[in-house]
């Protein structure tokens, strides 16, 4: 965080190498977030690029006491939500989350082993479908909590809502995922 802060200070004074360092440090984690939000690798790449362009433009508004990573998460989440809204309006279904890299073949996949896929194929299918059924806020809150590791308080900052609302969105998302998955999961031994 201290390193980020130093880079932000330099970038604000016009040091493009410092901004480049921020881009290189945070691009990959933002891609993961954006992919979870949009379900599409090409969209995720676009979101990452647009997020840094917005960040560069708004660098003066960044509060140096805050975490640059969380700030970028907020920007990338907003970019992702914009994109998802557009897609919904156009009634285009996003590429399913289990179809990685379509249009972006250079991205290596960390797909589970074939055995694991065979064991959990239906679960994964239902999970991807259930994720697509979540509302924008539920999906964003769940992605930030489950995959991003953000605490509820941080999620409320990213989504610009009260902590109670952020927590409620996470719960609703978990409830929906449980309803979708429990019927196909083997009973507890």
């Amino acid at each position, binding site marked *: 965080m201290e390193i980020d802060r130093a880079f932000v200070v330099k970038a604000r004074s016009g040091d*493009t190498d410092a901004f*480049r360092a921020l*881009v*290189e*440090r*945070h*691009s*990959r984690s933002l*891609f*993961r977030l954006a*992919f*979870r939000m949009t379900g599409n690798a090409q969209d995720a*790449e*676009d979101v990452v*690029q*647009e997020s*840094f*362009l*917005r960040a*560069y*433009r*708004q660098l003066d508004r960044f509060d140096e006491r805050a975490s640059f990573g969380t700030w970028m998460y907020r920007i990338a989440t*907003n*970019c992702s939500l*914009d*994109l998802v*809204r*557009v897609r919904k*309006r156009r009634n285009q279904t996003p590429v399913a*989350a*289990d179809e*990685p*890299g379509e249009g*972006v073949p*250079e*991205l*290596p*996949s*960390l797909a*589970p082993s074939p055995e*694991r896929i065979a064991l959990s194929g239906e*679960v*994964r299918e239902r*999970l*991807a479908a259930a*994720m697509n059924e979540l509302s924008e806020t539920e999906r964003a809150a769940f992605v930030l*909590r*489950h995959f991003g590791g953000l*605490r*509820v308080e941080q999620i409320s900052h990213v989504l610009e809502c009260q902590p109670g609302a952020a*927590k409620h969105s*996470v*719960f609703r998302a*978990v409830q929906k*995922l*449980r309803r979708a*998955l*429990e019927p196909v*999961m083997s009973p*507890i031994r």
Partner: protein
Amino acid sequence: MNHLNEEQLVLYYYGEENGVPDVAGHLESCETCRQAYVSLERVLDAADELTLPEPAEDFGARTWERIAPRLAARRAVFAAAVWRWAAAAGVLLAALLAGQFYPKPRPAAAVAVADPQAGERLLRLAVGDYLERSQMVLAEVANANPRQPLDISFERERAADLVAESRLYRQTALRTGDAAVAGVLDDLDRVMLEITHSPARLTPAELERLRDTLDSEEILFKIRVLGADVRADEAAAAAVSNPARKS
């Protein structure tokens, strides 16, 4: 202790069980809650099985390569805007000192009579600069990627500044009888107001609507034509006032 509710179990799973006393201890002693927790844990653990394409090691460097030219373009636009704003402020100051825009109680006609050519020239200089800055704002909207949402917060601020500034030029143009300039400034005002009142983040559909307005007003074309006229007038006036430079 009563049974744990679902919210408490979810928070416990994520290590955020703030304020809930000894959840772990309760789970050890309560079979019902333990079963509920194990069921929840299995669902949430399964979420990790969603395939995630891991970005390549050089993903950050590639991202930089793609955005660096666009950052440079933004810096250039911003620097030019700041420089031109300063230049326009200088022109305005000169005009104010000359008493053209805010004359003392004298009627406007008297100013025009006193030195109509100087007043007109000042107006043209200021308007030329104003048009260039307007064109930069409009070009950002006109050239944006139509497939992506567009953040126009910067352009909205510039548009609001330009609207506030244009009144001065429009009034002066009307006073000096330059109906063509006043007309284009009117059209430009309408477009700038639309940008000012647009959301900070435009969806592609909203961007398309805004572009339609630009097209229907033919505003970029009008700006180019008027800008070319203004520059030609400036060059002619400069040649007249400083003939030595011609030779």
